[in-house]
Structure formats: structure tokens, C-alpha cells
């Protein structure tokens, strides 16, 4: 039986963490190809402990003007229990290493989310991205810091949260690769929640790339993520489809 203090703590955690733990979360990859343009669709869904399902869809348009800078704008729609929210997002990704020159690729992600309905807070996300290859296995690890700011009608406690992403991918063949993805949030960056209140979602993933014409291709990845901590949804289904041209 949880004490009132713990219940209050969990409730606070859910209020503050919901935005960061979106079911359509996706891996940020540090490698940038100059000149690449893409239309990008993402979708994810999960059900909370009360049985209320959340759906998140994102439609984005991205471009890499240089070898070290990729920028993308998104329109995001979130719906949960009959309520919806539309968000405009602007993502900027930077690659600090020249691809292949060092054992690791290092990059950074910055993202700002602006809700289009009034009385909702903005959010900023920032963090380093890492990637390396061992033979046909690609490994990624990202560390993310996120904070809300602005409008605060529910008098939430705005904190800087710490999260992570990881991915291992076996490059079996171009059209079909497989691996594992994991997403998680541990609470405030300098004062982590106890394990039960942390939100960890890990599971198998598939990836691939299909060429459809001269320098045009579809890239996909999808995962079934299992809640490996009490605060996480039991199952999260997520997918990403990119058209590169």
C-alpha cells in the first residue's frame, strides 16, 4: 500500500513527465547528410494505468543545409481521453564529428515545442547524441534534458528532467534490419525519482530503407516497447516513416 506522500509524489511525477514520455518518441541520430530533404511521419500510442489511450502523430519537413546541421519543423497532434492538443515543433540537430573520422559520432539535439492552444506551456529539449559501429552493429545512445516554461494553469512544478534513448541495430540487409530501442525518463536531472516512479520503455525494433527512384527512398522504423518500470505504460507502439528526396 502506497502512502499518501508516495501517491502525491507519483501524481506530481505523472504531471511533470507526461510531455517527455510521448509514445511517438523517436531516436535522434547524429549523422547528417548534407542536402538531404525529407517528409517525415511518426505515430505512437500507449495506454495508461487507468486504461486511457494516448495517440500522438507528427508530420515533419526536414532539410540538411550543411554536413553539420539538420533542421526540421513538425506539426504534432496529441489526443488522450477525448482531449487534444496541437503543437508546433522546431528541431535542430548538429553533428560535431566528420562521419567516420573518429571511433564515435557526436552530435547534439535541440528542440522547442510550442502548443497552438492557449494556456499550455512551451517545452525545450537539449542533449548530446552518440553513435558508433562495431562491424554490422550500429549503437546509439542519447542523453536528453527537457524543461517546460511559460503558461502554467495547473501550477505544475517545472523541473529540468533527464531522459535517455538507446538503440542497437544489426544491419542485416538494407531493406530489413532489426534491433532494440529503449526510451526512458528518470526524473529531475539532479534528483532522480525512485525506480518505481521512473519511466522506462524498452523493446524490439525493425528498420529498413527502400529505394523508390533516383535519390528517393523510404526509410522506416517501428518498435513495440514494454514498460520495464511501474510508471511506464505496459505497451507502447511506435513507428516512423520518412520519404527522402
Amino acid at each position, binding site marked *: 500500500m502506497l502512502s499518501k506522500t508516495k501517491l502525491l509524489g507519483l501524481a506530481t511525477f505523472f504531471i511533470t513527465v507526461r510531455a517527455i514520455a510521448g509514445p511517438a518518441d523517436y531516436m535522434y541520430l547524429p549523422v547528417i547528410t548534407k542536402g538531404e530533404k525529407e517528409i517525415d511521419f511518426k505515430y505512437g500510442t500507449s495506454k495508461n494505468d487507468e486504461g486511457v489511450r494516448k495517440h500522438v502523430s507528427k508530420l515533419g519537413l526536414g532539410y540538411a543545409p550543411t554536413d553539420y546541421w539538420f533542421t526540421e519543423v513538425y506539426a504534432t497532434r496529441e489526443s488522450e481521453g477525448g482531449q487534444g492538443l496541437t503543437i508546433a515543433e522546431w528541431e535542430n540537430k548538429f553533428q560535431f564529428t*566528420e562521419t*567516420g573520422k573518429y571511433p564515435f559520432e557526436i552530435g547534439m539535439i535541440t528542440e522547442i515545442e510550442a502548443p497552438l492552444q492557449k494556456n499550455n506551456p512551451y517545452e525545450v529539449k537539449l542533449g548530446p547524441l552518440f553513435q558508433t559501429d562495431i562491424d554490422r552493429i550500429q549503437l546509439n545512445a542519447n542523453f536528453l534534458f527537457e524543461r517546460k516554461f511559460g503558461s502554467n494553469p495547473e501550477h505544475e512544478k517545472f523541473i529540468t528532467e533527464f531522459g535517455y534513448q538507446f538503440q542497437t541495430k544489426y*544491419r542485416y540487409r538494407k531493406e530489413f534490419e532489426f534491433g532494440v530501442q529503449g526510451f526512458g525518463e528518470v526524473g529531475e536531472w539532479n534528483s532522480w525519482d525512485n525506480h518505481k516512479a521512473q519511466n522506462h520503455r524498452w523493446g524490439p525494433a525493425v528498420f529498413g530503407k527502400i529505394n523508390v527512384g533516383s535519390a528517393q527512398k523510404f526509410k522506416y522504423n517501428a518498435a513495440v516497447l514494454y514498460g520495464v518500470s511501474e510508471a511506464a505504460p505496459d505497451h507502447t507502439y511506435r513507428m516512423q516513416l520518412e520519404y527522402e528526396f
Partner: protein
Amino acid sequence: MKKSFIAASLLLSGLAFGGDQEVTLTIENHQMKPSTIEIPADKKIKLIMINKDNTPEEFESYDLAREKIIPANSSTDLYIGPLKPGRYEFHGELNPMTAKGEVIVK
């Protein structure tokens, strides 16, 4: 003083020779030249790609896990390796029928 100069010279020459091996790949008439590149195993290679055509090309290799766009009449560098012995295919995404080649690692 003389000893210091000799030591510094040796150090600098060591750094110079310790650099990555360079290989030049030229794109001309939508073809990759040379179409076969031989490199040693377990070495990092700097591939200098020169596009002499009036159209861009995209170097792509799933085997090498690399893709890079080379604008028309320009050059760019790409690092590959260290690789195990074997054959690694590459091609030009915009002219895949003619712009193709392989890296042979020995």
C-alpha cells in the same frame, strides 16, 4: 638545442606519416574512377571524391554504411574503415547503372 630540433622533427614526421591513407575517387561521365579500390585491412581511409560532372552525385554504400552528396564540379572527403578483408560495393545513387564500384580490402 640540436637534440630538441631533431626530436621535434622526428615527432612531426611521425605525425605526418601517422595520418590516414588517402584514396582519390573521381566521378566523370557518371562513372566512378577507379571502379575498384584496394585498401589494407584495419586501416582508416580518407576517400577524396571529386565530381567532374555538371550534375550532383550521391555516393552510397550500404556495405560501408556511408552516403554523401557530392555537388556538381566539386569535391568532398569521406572516411571509411577500419574494415575486415572482403568486398564492399558502392554506387552513385543518381546514376546507379553506370556509377558503381567496389572496395577490396586485403
